[in-house]
């Protein structure tokens, strides 16, 4: 197991399987009824983010994304945690409202250290990675 450390923007504890990509994600293009990504051309298109620890650079798209994240939580399809290079205000607001742990500026580089499918545990600013 390795432990990475970042800055906790929404502090919490969570654990899940990692989804990792270098594309930005628009939560307004995730179906809240299923948790399935519908963003055209996105590497996670057609996959569910429910219960996963999401590792992606930053949010993009509609400013309504905060409410879409709240909707996902309400439908039971919220991600377990979100790890960003630099989070954006839409994801921050959504994570606060839906109470989803959110960490950014993680070192060493989580895009190198976390592989898709790794088990990831978030404890505040600490990120434990188990392969």
């Amino acid at each position: 197991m390795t432990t990475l450390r970042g800055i906790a923007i929404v502090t919490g504890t969570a654990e899940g399987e990692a989804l990792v990509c270098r594309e930005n994600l628009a939560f307004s293009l995730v179906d809240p009824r299923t948790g399935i990504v519908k963003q055209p051309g996105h590497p996670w298109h057609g996959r569910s983010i429910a219960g996963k620890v999401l590792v992606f650079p930053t949010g993009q798209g509609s400013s309504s994304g905060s409410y879409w994240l709240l909707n996902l939580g309400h439908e039971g399809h919220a991600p377990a945690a979100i790890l960003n290079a630099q989070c954006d205000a839409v994801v921050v607001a959504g994570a606060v409202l839906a109470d989803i742990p959110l960490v950014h500026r993680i070192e060493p580089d989580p895009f190198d250290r976390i592989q898709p499918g790794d088990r990831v545990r978030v404890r505040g600013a600490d990120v434990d990675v188990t392969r």
Partner: protein
Amino acid sequence: MTAALALDPAQQAMLDGRNGWPQQIAMRLLVAVARAFDAPRLIPVASVHLSLSGVSVGEPGRRLFEDLVARGGRFVVPTTLNVLSLDRSAAAPGDASGPPATQLAIAAACESLGGRPTYSCNPFLLDIVPARGESVAWNESATAPYVNGVLGARTNREGATALASALTGFTAEYGMHVASARRGGVAIEVDTPLDGADAFAVLGGAVGRACGARIPVVAGLRRTPTLDEFTAFCAALAAVSPVAMFHMVGITPEAPASLDRLGTAVRLDARALAAETARHSTATGERVDLVAVGCPHASLEQVHEVAALVGDAHVADGTRFVVQTSMFIAEAAARSGAAARLRAAGVELSADTCVHIAYRQAPPGSTMATNSLKIAYLTGSHDVGVRFGTLAQCVAAGVTGVWR
């Protein structure tokens, strides 16, 4: 490293929950944003423009807004409200349940919190106009370039953060609230005369495509754009790019004196703007099922222009023609007689909403004509064909049912 965020005693009291849960959750949200962007402090906002469409806020959002009302929440600064997912005046009695009920409940909650019932994406025609140098928190991406670029006031492109600002009167001091972040980053030279909102919408799209995430500085315009031209430009710019700010040399208040020191300018001539227009038309057949104009919401002058272009003609059988505006402009159009003329011609004058955010969407496989680059751009991701052109072309399509 994260800069230490300093809260004043009033802000700290909100965060500690001493003023109740609504201000506490709002302050948590603002503090999280401030930490994420290394903002040194929270600053007062003079006004808020808030998005509340049922399509995006949904049932959990309704619960949030209703909880805020029930637990004593109150908007502490003047707050205007953005478009709804339905036209309240056209809401049917059967709309007492399901999504329409959700939307009406969200609107009622926002009014209970103190929101002004503007229900428009074009608040510049109606209500609060921020003053130069003033910080505000305005939701609805199309308003941000207008607030920052045209007025010289300050807002980031806000999401639910605008709700937190309405409840507390503060925002995090980062992004557009910081003078150094407002400077231009890419030079754009316009090399063709432009006239009218349609032309400025196309310019906004072309500038947004050229600037990416850098703030554009536009030169070469021969006069100051009108309010309608500015709002069309800003909506298109914000649809195509993530920027919240632009400058026009010799025109906007914070523009540099010239394009010097910005590197080689991107040149936009008539050919480039024609190419920008063409790329937004995705439909191939001639048939048009829906004509939608008024994005951003039409001004009274634009409603009158549609009525004049329609003249004595009538909307074609099988085609729906919608002019989108606010209830206030619709009432003014009723007084001027334009609303009755449009109704007689079969044109719907729709208030409070727009085809992009309405529950009633263009059906998949249909073709929509619009003079709004923003609507054309957003509809491009749906299974709906788009014909993008001028208002005159849209009116012709409405009365003949075909695009030429």
